[in-house]
C-alpha cells in the first residue's frame, strides 16, 4: 500500500480522503492503490510528469472518473454513489471551460441558479465573488471578450460561488502567459487562504507547486512517491526520482568503499543503506562552495558562466578518481564578477546537503 497517508481522519470539516484507489485505462494503471489525506483548509499540490496520474486522481475526487477499487471521501462522506453534480466541489479547468453564451456574471451565477438559490441571495453572492476575484469591471463581458487571466479568475469565482467544501484545480495556469501565470498563482493562493477552503492543485511545474502548496504529493506511474511540505521535498528527497524532478541538482555516481561514499576533496558521507557497490549522489548548485585555486577542496576549472541576475551559474569541470565530472555551482554575481572562463578553482560540498541513493546493480 502506498505510504502517503497523513494523519487520521478528524471529525467533520472538508478534508479529502482517498483510500486505496485504483483506476485502470485499458492495460495502463493510472492510479495504483493510492491513499491520501488532504487536511481541511490545506492546499495540496499534485505534482508529477505527464501520465503520472495526478489529473486522474483529481478527476476521481470530482467524480468525473470512477475508481475501479477504493473509496473517495469528502468531509466524512463516502462519495462512491454520489454523482458529480451532487458533490460539494468546485472545479477550475485548464482551458477555463467558461460557458461562451453567458457573461462573466452569469457564469459565476450558474452554480447558484442550478441549485435553485433565491434570486436576491444569489445576486449578493455573485457580487461577493466578483469582488473576491477582482472582476467587477468585467462582470458583463462575454468569455471571448476577456483575457486568459480574467477568464481563469472568472472560473475561480464560478467554482467558489456555491461555497463548496473542496476546490479542485486542474493545471489552471498552463494556458496562460508567463507573467500572468505568476500573478494569478499568487491570486489563487490568496483567495484559497482567505476563504480557508481545502484545495487540490494539479501541476507539472515544480516551482509552481513549491510556491503555492502547504504540502506536495509527488506522483510517478500512478503512485505517490513522496508527500511532504515543499521545503522537505526540496531538501530531503526520498527517492532518486524525487531528487531529479524537484529542483536542479548535480549528480555524480561514485563507488562505495568501507561504508562511505567519497568525492575526494569535495565531500565524504556515509553510504546509503542498501548500496551495492555504487551510489548516486545529488547536491544542489547553491550548496557548492567555491574557493581559489589552491584552496581546500577538489580542483576544477571554469568552463562557462551564465549570468542569471543576482546569481551567476558556473559550469565547472573536475577530474576525480572515477572519471570526469561536470557540475553547476551557483554564487552571488558580485562575488564572481572577476572570475574568467578558463580559471582554475576548487570546490567543496557540505556533506549535510548531499543526498545519496543506491545504484541498481544492472545498468
Amino acid at each position, binding site marked *: 500500500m502506498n505510504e502517503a497517508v497523513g494523519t487520521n481522519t478528524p471529525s467533520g470539516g472538508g478534508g479529502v480522503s482517498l483510500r486505496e484507489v485504483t483506476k485502470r485505462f485499458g492495460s495502463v494503471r493510472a492510479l495504483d492503490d493510492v491513499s491520501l489525506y488532504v487536511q481541511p483548509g490545506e492546499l495540496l499540490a499534485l505534482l508529477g510528469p505527464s501520465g503520472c496520474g495526478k489529473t486522474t486522481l483529481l478527476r476521481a475526487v470530482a467524480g468525473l472518473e470512477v475508481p475501479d477499487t477504493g473509496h473517495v471521501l469528502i468531509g466524512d462522506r463516502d462519495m462512491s454513489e454520489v454523482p458529480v*453534480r451532487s458533490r460539494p466541489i468546485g472545479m477550475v479547468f485548464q*482551458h477555463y471551460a467558461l*460557458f*461562451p*453564451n*453567458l457573461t462573466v456574471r452569469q457564469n459565476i451565477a450558474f*452554480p447558484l441558479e*442550478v441549485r435553485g438559490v433565491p434570486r436576491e441571495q444569489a445576486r449578493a453572492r455573485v457580487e461577493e465573488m466578483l469582488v473576491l476575484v477582482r472582476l467587477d469591471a468585467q462582470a458583463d463581458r462575454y468569455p471571448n471578450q476577456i483575457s486568459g487571466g480574467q477568464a481563469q479568475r472568472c472560473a475561480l469565482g464560478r*467554482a467558489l460561488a456555491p461555497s463548496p467544501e473542496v476546490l*479542485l484545480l486542474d493545471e489552471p495556469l498552463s494556458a496562460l502567459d508567463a507573467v500572468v501565470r505568476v500573478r494569478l498563482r499568487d491570486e489563487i493562493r490568496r483567495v484559497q487562504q482567505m476563504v480557508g477552503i481545502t484545495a487540490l492543485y494539479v501541476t507539472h511545474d515544480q516551482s509552481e507547486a513549491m510556491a503555492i502548496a502547504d504540502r506536495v504529493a509527488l506522483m510517478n506511474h500512478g503512485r505517490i512517491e513522496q508527500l511532504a511540505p515543499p521545503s522537505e521535498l526540496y531538501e530531503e528527497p526520498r527517492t532518486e526520482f524525487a531528487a531529479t524532478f524537484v529542483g536542479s541538482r548535480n549528480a555524480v555516481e561514485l563507488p562505495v568503499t568501507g561504508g562511505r561514499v567519497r568525492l575526494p576533496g569535495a565531500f565524504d558521507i556515509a553510504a546509503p543503506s542498501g548500496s551495492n557497490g555504487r551510489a548516486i549522489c545529488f547536491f544542489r548548485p547553491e550548496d557548492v562552495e567555491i574557493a581559489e585555486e589552491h584552496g581546500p577542496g577538489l580542483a576544477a576549472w571554469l568552463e562557462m558562466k551564465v549570468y542569471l541576475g543576482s546569481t551567476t551559474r558556473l559550469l565547472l569541470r573536475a577530474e576525480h578518481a572515477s572519471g570526469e565530472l561536470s557540475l553547476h555551482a551557483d554564487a552571488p554575481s558580485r562575488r564572481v564578477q572577476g572570475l574568467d572562463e578558463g580559471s582554475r578553482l576548487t570546490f567543496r560540498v557540505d556533506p549535510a546537503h548531499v543526498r545519496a541513493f543506491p545504484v541498481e546493480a544492472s545498468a
Partner: protein
Amino acid sequence: MSAPPRRAGRIGSSLLFGLLAVYLLLPIIAVLLYSLATVWRARILPDAFTLDHYVRVFNDPRILGAFGRSFLLASIVTCIDILIVVPAAYWARIRNPRITPLLALGAAIPFALPYVVIAFGIDRLIGEFVPSIQNTLAVLIVAQAAIAFPFFYWAVDGSMAAAGIERLSEAAETCGARPRQIVRRIVFPAIRMGVVTGSVLVFAVSFGEFALAQVLVGSAFETLPLWQADAMLQTTGRFNDLAVTTVLSFVLLFLLAVVLVTWNRGQTVRLLPGATTQKEGRA
C-alpha cells in the same frame, strides 16, 4: 501563403474567378430571362419582357399545389431530422461514444447509395412486407428524413466539436447542474449554429429531391420537381412556367444559402464527411 502572389498569378486567378462567376451565373440569368420573355426566337436576348408568366403561375392551382407540397414536405422532414438527430448526436458525444461509429456509417449510406437505388429498395421492402402503406406520403417523409440526415448530423456534430461540448458539460456538472439543465442552458446555445446550418441543408435537399418522390409516391403527391419533370417532357412544353418555377425555387434556395453563409461568417463549413483539418475545441 504569406508571400504576395506574383502579378501573373493574380491575373490568372482573377481570370479563373471571372470565368467561374460567368459560368455559375449564366444558366441562372438565362432562366430568369426566359421567365420574363414574351417571345424569344433566334436572338440572343428576348424580344420583349413581361411579367405575365409570373402572374399566370401564381394563379395556377396545380403549380401552387406542387410548390406548397414541396414546401410542406421539406418543412416536415426538417423538423423530423432536428428532433431525431440532435439527441442522438449529443448522446453520442457526451454519454455513449460507441454510438458514433454507427451514426457515421449510417451517414455514409445516402452518400454512397444513389437516391434512386434507395428509393427502389424501400419500395421493394415495403411491397414485400407492408404493401398497405405503399405510395403513402408517410413513406416519402421517412425516406427523405433518412437521406437528408447526414447533412444535419455533420453540421450539428461539427458545432459540438467546435464548442468543446464535452469540456463544457463536465464544467457544468461540477457546478452542480442536472442533465436537463445542462442541455437547456449549455448545449442548446452551443449548437444553435449547427442546427440552423443543418436545417437549411436538409430543407434544400428535400425541396429539390426527385428520385424518392417519383418512385415512392409519384403523381399521388406531386411535388415541385415532379411537376417540373412533367412540364419538361411534355410535347407542349410549358417552358415559360417551368422557367418561372425554376426561378422561384432558385430564389428560395439562394436565400437559404445566404442565411447559411452569413451565420457561418465565411468560415469553412465542415462538409467533407469524416474529416476536418481545423483544430477542434478551443485554442
